């Protein structure tokens, strides 16, 4: 019980358009500490929608979301921002680095926001993370001088800077070529195995999903497996 880092209880969501369309139906599951889980399904099955609800960014849903034993339902926007900052790391399909800041600075920003470590400590930590991914030599460059694969690795380093409870990925390899996809996938493996990092990755790549501990398969807004 105490090892559950994230729990979804009967999450429902519908889009109110011309006709009401239910995209998530009674989705319930949980992720334990150290889990390397993936959500798979065809495009349009609601897997990304589910991820954004789990990430606290989308608050328009019914049901309960519990992260680190705390219910998210009634938290204010600022409190949710704090939860995202402290407990969740994100990796998106696109890297979303800030072009105005150097690579190491980009990695540091969520840490500076949290304010737990001094700027100097944070810089050391950021360099450490970059080193894990073998891109510490690029730290002083600007993001637009990096290749796509390198940028994605920087984004993963940024997700790790606050030692989050869980890392969520939305098709993190979707935008990369085969070789870079493999590198990124290996990195996730490494994080899960060597650092016992909890990971929840949305993907449509079955090969990727097969290699995770725990596959959540979705279809038409429901979990089928």
């Amino acid at each position, binding site marked *: 019980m105490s090892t559950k880092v994230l729990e979804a209880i009967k999450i429902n969501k519908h889009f109110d358009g011309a006709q009401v369309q239910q995209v998530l139906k009674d989705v319930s599951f949980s992720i334990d500490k150290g889990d390397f889980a993936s959500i798979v399904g065809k495009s349009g099955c609601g897997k990304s929608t589910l991820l954004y609800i789990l990430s606290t960014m989308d608050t328009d849903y019914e049901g309960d979301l519990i992260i680190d034993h705390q219910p998210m339902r009634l938290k204010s926007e600022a409190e949710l921002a704090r939860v995202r900052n402290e407990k969740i790391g994100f990796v998106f399909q696109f890297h979303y680095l*800030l072009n105005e800041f150097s690579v190491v600075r980009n990695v540091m920003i969520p840490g500076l926001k949290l304010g737990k470590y001094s700027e100097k400590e944070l810089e050391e930590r950021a360099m450490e993370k970059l080193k894990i991914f073998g891109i510490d030599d690029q730290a002083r460059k600007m993001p637009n001088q990096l290749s796509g694969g390198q940028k994605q690795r920087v984004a993963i380093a940024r997700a790790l800077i606050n030692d989050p409870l869980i890392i969520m990925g939305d098709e993190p390899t979707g935008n990369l070529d085969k070789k870079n996809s493999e590198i990124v996938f290996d990195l996730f493996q490494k994080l899960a195995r060597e650092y016992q990092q909890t990971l929840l990755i949305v993907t449509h790549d079955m090969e990727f999903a097969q290699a995770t501990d725990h596959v959540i398969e979705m279809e038409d807004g429901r979990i089928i497996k």
Partner: protein
Amino acid sequence: MRYKLLVNIAIALSMARWKQTLVAAVGVTFSITMFITLLGFMNGLNDMLDGLILNRTPHIKLYNELKPSLVQPVQLASAFKGHYHFIRSVKPYGGRLEIYNVNPIMDAVAKDERVLGIAPKISTQVFYTVGAVDVAGVINGVDVEAENNLFFFSTYVTTGDYIDLKNIPNTIILGKAAADKMLAKIGDVIQVTTVTGEQQQLKVVGYFQSGLNDLDKVQSYTSLNTAQKLLGESRNYITDLQVKLKDIELAPAMAKEYSALFGIDAEDIQTANSQFETGSSVRSTISYAVGITLLIVAGFGIYNILNMMIYEKMDSIAILKATGFSGKDVKRIFIMIALSIGVIGVMFGLIFGFLMSSLIDQIPFDTPALPRIKTFPINYSLKFYIIGATFGIFTTYLAGYLPSRKASKVDPVVIIRGK
């Protein structure tokens, strides 16, 4: 620590678009410059025009007005008490124009703490006799030193030395226009005839130029003694007491007080010259309106640029929010950008406004009507700088507020999923 991070991000965002940021700041600078210059120039002119009259007008004038007696004999008669009195064709009582007990009144007024000074004056109608022609005029007998201290007499004496009036008996300073009409040069002796028919020879020792030509056509100045001699009156003969106060705003109330206390007529400057204040305030209002319009236009510039910046930086805003920045933080970042554009723009605006004012201050402005004025007048009051700065920063804050609210409402899910 947290603020430092927000400041860093604000700087990075505005530097990424430094040309636009600069244009916005230049807009603010320009409008503040114009605001300061316009108000300084406008108020300089106002001060000059007001000074034409107000500097030389006493704040309170004590005098005896020629007027019909308020109480007619029939009203005093006990036999007709309780009757209605119909009195027709009442005429002013031909009383004396001089102020009774003038010395005690002068002493009492001079002791009043609110009073800056008092200057006695004799005002009388005369004819200047030029050959066979008589030209009507007014002679003011003044206490030369008091007049100079309180009403800047010397600045209006354009030729000759004003103090000669006091030092040389039987002298006169003629209005420039009157002198031109009479072809009277300095050192000439002119003949003056009073309304009672007395004649006197007076030597011209200077010209007087007020800036109001109509006034200069009739007015001349002599010393008190000369005027008393001219009228054949004693040394106690004074027709006007001119009082200057420390605070001009007290004039109406004090005029009433003196009128009641001394039993004479008292006129305050506000009543005598109300039209000047109206003119000044209208001119000021117009310049404020124009200045503030300029600032608002600059505000729209900032609004536009921030809006554009927000559209361009949608991705950055989304990722900041995804990684733990709240809507409030994002709002602060954009307000900071707006305010720094505002503060820098305002600062340069104040400097350029001052320089521009100084430049206008150097432009020659020669007009025969205003002998004292050599260059365009400028008012350097700190008030305009404070109003300009306050309003400038306030406008930029407002201009930044709406876009930053929009930025704070950006939904990261929409942006990130949209890719």
